[in-house]
């Protein structure tokens, strides 16, 4: 990417940042808000946060890269999170990943070419009673089977 457009934060995001500016330990809360709006933490977003909060970029980047929740690349329009926590792993969460892989041709950490879906593996979304579980754009799908995957994906396509 050659030319960089200036990244703009929405008014509500700016208001949030101003509200939190003086609070100690605000960085992670601000990053959550930024990711909520932009979808991930781009280099530009990190730079902007660094300026706005007056925190060195190295520190911002150190925090962003330490925590798994913060994404460094743009996710797909629908992010698929397959649970590979213990309960889901024992009940075949890996088979769900395989089924998605077969259906969409993407592996964990990848985005489909059309930018529609991205796939990530997460650890326990707290519905272990329904294992194996995945979420798509926040919606939970439980008691999954390989066979059920294509139908669910079709709803989002």
């Amino acid at each position, binding site marked *: 990417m050659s030319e960089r457009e200036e990244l703009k934060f929405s008014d509500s995001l700016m208001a949030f940042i101003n509200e939190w500016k003086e609070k100690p330990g605000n960085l992670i809360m601000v990053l959550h808000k930024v990711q909520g709006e932009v979808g991930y933490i781009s280099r530009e977003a990190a730079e902007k946060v660094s300026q706005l909060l007056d925190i060195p970029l190295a520190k911002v980047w150190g925090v962003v890269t330490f925590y798994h929740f913060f994404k460094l690349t743009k996710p797909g329009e629908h992010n698929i999170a397959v649970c590979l926590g213990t309960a889901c792993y024992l009940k075949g969460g890996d088979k769900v990943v395989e089924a998605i892989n077969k259906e969409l041709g993407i592996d964990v950490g990848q985005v489909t070419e059309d930018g529609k879906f991205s796939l990530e593996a997460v650890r326990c979304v*707290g519905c272990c009673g329904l294992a194996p579980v995945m979420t798509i754009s926040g919606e939970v799908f439980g008691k999954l089977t390989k066979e059920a995957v294509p139908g669910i994906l079709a709803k989002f396509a």
Partner: protein
Amino acid sequence: MAFRNYILVCGGTACESSRSQQIFDNLKLEAEKQGVADEVQIVQTGCFGFCEQGPIVKILPEDSFYVKVAPEDAHELIAEHIIKGREVKRLLYDKEKAAKHAQVEDIKFYQKQFRIVLRNCGFIDPENINEYIARDGYAALEKALFEMTPEDIIEQLKIAGLRGRGGAGFPTWMKWNFSKNVESDIKYVVCNADEGDPGAYMDRSTLEGDPHSVLEAMTICGKAIGAHQGFIYIRAEYPLAIHRLEVAMAQSKELGLLGKDILGSGFDFDIEIRLGAGAFVCGEETALLQSIMGHRGMPVPRPPFPAVKGLWEKPTVINNVETWANIPVIIHKGGEWFSKIGDEDSHGTKVFALTGKICNSGLVEVPMGTTLREIVYDIGGGIAHGKKFKAVQTGGPSGGVITSENLDTPIDFGSLVKIGSMMGSGGMIVMDEDDCMVDVAKFYLNFTVDESCGKCMPCRIGGKTMLGILEKITDGKGTMKDLDTLTEIANTMRKASLCALGQTSPNPVMSTMKFFRDEYIAHIVDKKCPAGKCKKLISYVIDPAKCKGCTACARKCPVSCISGSLKQPHTIDQTKCIKCGTCIQTCKFGAISIQ
């Protein structure tokens, strides 16, 4: 106005994912349509614990327990149950007993349970503070503010014998006492809601079903140690719990139960939510405090303990969600009452997330001292699909396996350590004959290696090396000497790691090696995986006597490695087979087996 019936609809995450919101909306609509909207109150509650059978709907006063309810059932529930007073039998949990009546007490899943922590989950609308208050909510806070000195409060916790439910089991009163006794103008109270153990969701359900119990307890602690600010550190992956906490905080502020001059007592206490960001190590208390302060979540050496020097160097009491949820009850009913529940070693109850290969997966709360057998067989209904029990893992990635010979061990802090596991935060994962114990050990270690913060060498390098050896073993390239090397590294990690993550991460490996050594040996010496899980060590084989030559498997095989002509026995080319298992699922004649 009194209602004739109360309909409780589960609004926990698991049930919501099965359209419980739609059920709730439809019930309201139907009540309206059928003209009984004034006679029934319909409430959305937190998790009932019986998620496996969800979505759950319970109707009072009959106490009818409906399971696997669909939005389309709303019409019938209103028309039959509410209007005609007849239970909808096909939706009752126990259909055989339904002839009589299916009350909650009849359900085995609930019989041996005893609810303190989950006392309100599934009974109240967590987004309505009045329902919490109606069940003695905030009575303990009132008592603590007006009738008790800080010493009295701590004394009650001491009499109760409450120990931390987050894993380590440290006596709660001692922590509070340390903080109380430090002279400092500023002190903090922190709730650990990071719940990182993969496969556990006790804290999530508590917060979703009864958020006020935690707020009330933290405020009581504020009074006891002299703190005016609390933080709840919660996983960002728990949006519903975060939402319910925010609603609860707003409501308690409105009623003067949180904020400035609480109930006119002159005592101020406020709480702020801080979000975690998916790092398991941040559940460790010193790392958690680093994270609240906005840093990378790396543990720091103790002492000084947080109770003396925590957030911004100030005394900080940090407790787990479940620990907090016990406290209002202890203050309200007295430490003496609590101390009589449980066994000699540990008092009170423990909540477990019972998952894995079990019939009734769900949240269970039992008195300390209940045996594992009671949980697995009486409450959990035994192993699913008639398979054979193999082991239960408690303590998550820091814990160990418990085998069938120890099923009668009472569950308390001391007994679990004696048999080589630990209480942990409450994950209880049941494994059956299809689970390979080497693979399970590898799974947990993979997790801790991934989550190691990398600060200290024994954990960073030791974990990786151990994982490499386990991979070698599951690939069929292990040697018997590897088992000694694993033990050696494990001992070093246990002694030399900075925090409990590194100190305990070898536990799943050591424990499976102790109890299932034969499985390790099978992988190493016979190059076989007895459970048929480790792909490199299994092969799919067609029995020529059973194969009818239908060609179904050959057509389905993604790499086309099955050959044979129509009506002739087929064979699998082992050099090309990717062990995906498609053929075995396709075969209608049971001619394919794993060897």
